[in-house]
C-alpha cells in the first residue's frame, strides 16, 4: 500500500485530502507545518507528499528543499491557491514534481498522484 503524507496547516484541508485518498487505499499520514513535514518524512518515508506552500512558519518551500536534500527522489506535489505562480515556479525549481490548485476535486488529486507513482 502506498503511503502519502499530507501537509497543510488547516485541519480541514488535511482531512478532505485524507478522505479522498483513503477511499483509494492509500495509507495517509498528516503534518501540520514544514518542520513536522520534514521530520515525519525522514521517519516514515512516504511515497508521495502533498505540500501546502502557503503555511506560516517554516514555509512549504523550505520544507520541499530539505526533504529533497534528504531524499533526492522525493515526490512532492504542491497544493496552493491561484495567484501564486512565482511560488510554484520556485517550488518546482526546488524539486517539486507537480502542483494542484485549490479548489480541486478528487479526480485531479488522484490523477496527479497516480502519474507520480
Amino acid at each position, binding site marked *: 500500500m502506498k503511503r502519502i503524507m499530507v501537509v497543510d496547516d488547516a485541519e480541514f484541508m488535511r482531512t478532505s485530502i485524507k478522505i479522498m485518498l483513503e477511499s483509494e487505499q492509500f495509507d495517509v499520514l498528516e503534518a501540520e507545518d514544514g518542520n513536522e513535514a520534514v521530520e515525519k518524512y525522514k521517519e516514515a518515508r512516504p511515497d508521495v507528499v502533498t505540500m501546502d506552500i502557503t503555511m506560516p512558519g517554516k514555509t512549504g518551500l523550505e520544507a520541499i528543499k530539505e526533504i529533497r536534500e534528504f531524499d533526492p527522489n522525493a515526490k512532492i506535489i504542491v497544493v496552493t*491557491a491561484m495567484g501564486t505562480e512565482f511560488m510554484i515556479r520556485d517550488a518546482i525549481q526546488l524539486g517539486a514534481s507537480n502542483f494542484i490548485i485549490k479548489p480541486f476535486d478528487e479526480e485531479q488529486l488522484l490523477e496527479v498522484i497516480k*502519474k507520480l507513482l
Partner: protein
Amino acid sequence: MPDNPKLEPMLEMYVYETIQLIDRLEQLIMDSEVSGDLSEGMEEIFRIMHTIKGNSMMMMFEGIAGLSHITEDLFDYLRKAENVEPDYERITDLVLDGIDHIKISVQQLEAGGEPLGKPESLIQEIKEYLDSLTFMNSDQAKTIQKEKDQIEQKSQKYYIAPDKGDEKTTHKEPDEDRGYEVVFRFSAGSEMENIRAFSVVHGFKEKATDILHIPSEIVEDEGAMEYIQINGFQILFRSTEKEETIHEYFNSVAFAENMKVKKLSFDEYNEAIARYLGTDVEAFDTVEEIGESVIDSTTEVQGFIESTTEEQPFIDSTTGEQPIVETADPETELTATSIESDVVESVTQEETEIVLNDMPEIVPEINDELIALEEKAKKDKAQREQTKAAADKSSGAQNYISVGIPKVDKLMDLVGELVVSESMVTRNPDLTDVQLENFDKAVRQHRIIINELQDIVMSIRMMPLSMTFQKMNRLVRDMKKKVGKDIDFELRGKETEVDKNVIEQIGDPLMHIIRNSIDHGIESNDVRELSGKKSRGKIILEAKHSGGDVWITVKDNGKGINTEHILNKAESKGLLMKQKEEYTDREVYNFLFHSGFSTKEQVTEFSGRGVGLDVVARNVEALGGTIIIDSELGKGSEFAIRIPLTLAIIDGMMMSVNKSIFVLPITAIKESFSAKEHDVIVDPEGHEMCMIRGECYPILRLHDRFGIKTECKTINDGILIMTEYDGNVALLFADAILGEQQVVVKNLSSFLQKVEGISGCALLGDGRISLILDPAGLVNM
C-alpha cells in the same frame, strides 16, 4: 450542500474550524480597534482569511469564499504596503460585517441548510476601500509590483544557462544523440498551464540538452497560459536517453492530452530548430554541427548577459540603484526565439571556448548574488512569521486535539461509575465490623488516585469563558452605538474555566442580564451628569472560582432597582402574600423572576421581548445554579450567578416508598426520625404538620406527591426526614431509610416533563434506577 458526496462528512469539520477561526478573527479585529494598532494582528488576520477562503472553495461555498477572498486581498495589501494609514473604524466595521455574514451562513449550515448567497454589496464596499488605498499609494504599489517582476525576470534570464553547462560535458556517440519534438495539450480546467509547462521542462532538464519550447516565455508571460490553452505546448530537444525513457517521462505528465513524442531525423531537427529559434535554416551534416550552431546562438545569449552585467552596476537593494533589467532593451529579451541572426557577430571557436569556460563562473556568481538577496528577504519574512507563530502559541491560537463529545461523555460516565463503585467496595456492609489496617491504607491510596482521575476528567470538559465573554464584548459594542450611551465595559477573569455544558447555556442568560443593564440600568450620559455621576456608566462582567463554585457577576453603576415600583406592580398582579413592608429587599428582587414581570412598558429591540428574567432563572437552575440580585437605588445593581462545579456526583440518602427508591442530597437533610401518631397535627386547611421543639413544620407525603401506592400510610409506620432549603423546612414522609450512597447524577431525558421536586435520576449499584429529590422544589410545595 457540496455536490461532491465525499465532502459531506467534511461539513462538520468545516463548520467547527470556521467557527474557531471566526471567533479568533473577531477577537483580533476588536483588539486592534481598541488599541488603534493593526500591525500585530494583520498577519494572522490575513492567514485566517486565506484559510477560510481555501476551505470554502473546497466546499464550494461561493459567498463565503468571495467575501474572504476580497478581505484577504485587503489584508495582503495592508501587511505589505508602507506608509498606509488604515481607517481602523471602517476596517473593523467591514470585517465585523463580514464575520456576521459568515456566522449566519455557518449557523444555517449547522442546521442542515444552505449558506447565504454572495454578499455583493459588502464585497463591493471592501473592494472600494482597498482601491482607495491603492490609489493613494499607487506609486508604491507599482514599485512593489515592479520589484517583484524584476526579481522574477532576472532569475528567469539565467535559467537557460545551466543547460549550456551540461552541453560541454556530454560527449556521446552520434547515433545515440537524437533530436525529438514533443507536442501536447493540457486538459481543460487544469489551470496555470504555463506553470505546468514549466514544470514539465524543468523536470526533463537532466535528460536532455538544448531544450527549446514554444511559447518560449512561460513563467512571466501570462499570455503564455492562454496560448498554451489554445495551441498546446511544443518542446524541441536533444537527448541521449533511451527512447522508452523519454516516452515514459512524457506519459507521466499529469493532465496532459494528445501527447505526441516524435524522434527526429537530422533534416527534421534542422527545420525544427529554425522554427523554434526563428533563424534561417542552414544545412548541417553532423549532429555536432547542429550542436555548434545551437551553441553559437546561445553563446550570443551569454555574451549579451556578460556585456550587460559588466556594464551595469549590480542591484543594491539598500541604495536602491537601478537593477540591470531597467537598462536592458525589452526588445532583446533573452529567449531563443527572439535572437535575430543579423544581430549576431561571428564568434570564433576560441572566443566561444573562453566564454564557455568563464560562463560557469560568471553566471553562477551573479545568480548567487541574486539568490542571496532573495534568501535574505525570505529569512526576514520567515523570522517575522516565526515570532508570530511563537506569539500565537501563547495567545489565542493554541494546539488542540479535537475529541468527539460522545467519547468524552462516555469517559466521564465511566469515571463517575468508578467513583461510586469504589465507595461500594470500601463501604461494603461485609466489611463493617472488620479491622483491616493494610486494607485501609490501600483504600486511602486508591481513593486519592480516583479523586485525581475524577478531577482531570472533569477538567477535560472545562473550557475558559473567554469566548463567551468575547461575545458579550461584541454585544456591548453594538448596543452602545444603537442606544447612544457611552459605557465602559470591563471583563475580569475570562480565563476562568467552566464545564462545556455551562458555556453553552450561560451565554443567553448573561446576554439578557447585560442588555437589561444597558437598557434599564445605566442612565443616559446627560442624566448621569445631572445627578453628579461620571457621564460614562460602567459595567463589570466578572468570573471567578470560589469554594466548589463558579461565580459570574454583572455589576453596574446605574440607577439601581426601585423596590417600590416592583412591589406596586406585584400588588397589581395579585402576587403579594404579605404586607409590602414585610418584604425584604432580596424577596422583592425575586419578583423580577416571575414570568411576565417587566416593569418597562416598551419593548425595545434589545430587551423585554418576552425573554424575561424568568427564563434566565430557569436556565441557571438547569445548570444546577442560583442567581442572586443585589441593588442600591441610585447607585447600581449586581446580578450574581453561582454554578456548582462538580455536578455529577452527590452524597445521597436513599429512601424507599413501596418499591420506588428516592435519593435526597445529604446536604439538605437536617435530621430524620419516626413520629408518633399524636405528634401530627392537622391545620384548618387540612395540611398535616408536626411540632418539633416548639416549631411547626409541614409534612409532605412522598407517596401522595408522586402518586405511589404504598401500604405504609400511617405516620408512625414510616419515617420523617426533615429537609431544609434556603430557610424553608419540610418533613418528607417515606416508608423507610435505606442508607447513604454516593450516586452519579444523570439528567432526565428532555422528553420527560420537568417534574417539580425531582432534579434528576441516578443509577444505583445494583442496577436499579432511583429518582433524585430536589429539596428546593419540595420545601416550596
